[in-house]
């Protein structure tokens, strides 16, 4: 049996369209007015405005290497981060610290420490696994480069991004 869809009974106002057209124009004009008077909040204008200030404490940005307050590289080249890194972005070549160095007691340091930022997935496992608290995910998120080589962060770049971290583990500090 056929089901008859009841058609709505339109009033003459609705039939001649014009009042609803005027109402629609009024609505769109209200939007223009609100935009022009700044009442409508629109998207952030990215390069000029950034959300750095409201970034959460736990934000995982680019991984970096840090030094301690005595300017010692915290990394002892144990290579745990290299082994745990899921996308295998980290490459470490260890070397022995020469005997005449004042940090000779630490024995090892990275000769090369490379993080391929094209591979990095910002998971933070390297930071979690590090027994020396030497690798930290900082808040830099706009990692760009014009070539693949540029996207490989070497040791110098990683220390530049990381800077100094104080008051963490002190096991290599002779005074403590």
């Amino acid at each position: 049996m056929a089901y008859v869809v009841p058609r709505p009974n339109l009033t003459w106002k609705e039939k001649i369209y014009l009042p609803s057209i005027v109402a629609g124009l009024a609505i769109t004009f209200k939007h223009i007015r609100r935009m022009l008077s700044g009442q409508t909040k629109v998207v952030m204008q990215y390069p000029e405005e950034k959300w750095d200030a409201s970034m959460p404490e736990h934000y995982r940005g680019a991984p970096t290497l840090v030094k301690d307050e005595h300017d010692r590289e915290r990394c002892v080249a144990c290579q745990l981060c290299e082994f745990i890194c899921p996308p295998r972005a980290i490459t470490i070549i260890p070397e022995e610290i020469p005997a005449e160095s004042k940090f000779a007691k630490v024995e090892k340091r990275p000769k090369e420490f490379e993080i391929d930022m094209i591979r990095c997935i910002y998971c933070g496992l390297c930071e979690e696994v590090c027994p020396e608290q030497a690798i930290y995910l900082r808040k830099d998120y706009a990692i760009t480069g014009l070539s693949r080589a540029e996207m490989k962060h070497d040791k110098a770049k990683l220390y530049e991004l990381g800077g100094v971290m104080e008051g963490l583990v002190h096991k290599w500090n002779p005074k403590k």
Partner: protein
Amino acid sequence: MDFLTSPDFWFLTGTSLAKTIFLIFLVVLPMVSYTVYAERRVSALIQDRLGPNRTGFPLSLIPGFKKDFSPFLGGLGQPVADAVKFLLKEDFVPAHVNKLYFWLAPTLAMMPALVTLAAIPFGSTILGVPMVVANINVGLLFMFAISSVGVYGIVLAGWSSNSKYPFLGGIRSSSQMISYELGMGLSAVPVLLIASTTSLPNIVEYQIQNGWLLLPFTNGVFSIQKLLLWIPVFIAFVTFTIAMFAETNRLPFDLPESETELVAGYHTEYSSMKFALFFLGEYTAMIAGSALIVVLFLGGYHIPFIPNGDGKGGLSFLHVIPGTVWGIVNITAFFAKVAALLFVFIWVRWTLPRFRYDQLMKLGWLYIFEIALANIFLTAGILAFTK
């Protein structure tokens, strides 16, 4: 033959050429590209976005400049960037098209819109030269005749593309534009009855003497005839504007394009500058249409109490300033009115959804056509009884 060698002829040729170059290259084409920009910005404002606000003029490419120049609103370089993009894109002609008509169609979409501008009086006079390229006594008929050639561009584009979506778009546009041409022509007849002339400069002249047709008391004289005539004039204005929307294929009448159904309608197969010609043709037709509405209903270049370019009319103490200044003021006023109407075009486009095809035909043939026809008799009756 004597006329062809006389200085009058050279004066006429020179001034016409100067007027054409001024109108087309200095006013209309920049206006077209900035209408496209305005379309994007206004649509963005309506939809609570910002729109293109980045592209400045690339001064940083020139040595010595540090930053791009992007004045007040930002993004004013966008039309230039768009033009460069259109010029540099690959001009692809599909193998299955009918080459001759495929090449002919974009020009046929652009040219009629530009040619119609010839009859538009865009200003009073400057140094005694009337600001209309072709002062012909059948100006309005010329406008209708030439603008109806515009349908060939779309139909040929749809047909020669040899593909289903352009074909459907072409069919739709031909029926739509032919249907609404009737309504548009009939809507303009009350104006002709009232002004008793088809020459566009004379219609403007009539409105300067007797007040704008849509605002009849702008000359400061009250009369019961004008009050009565305002009713049919308003009806004519509404039907004429609606028909103009349909003629220029603007939403809510953009069935020939209707990108949700027909990809891009009649210009689906076009790319690069050929597509741009359709695009520019549409906007030029919008400007020509707005200019016609301004001339017929909104007093053309006239502002109340402002003298003409010959230094006559208006308030007498303004006659101290030379007429040339007022001539320039008139031209500015004309294009300001056109720009206001263009804003209405854009505003309506981003408010209303598209008509269904049968609704479009019903509106054109059952309402606009009938109302315009009845309106003629109403106007004639009022004119006959209030004489």
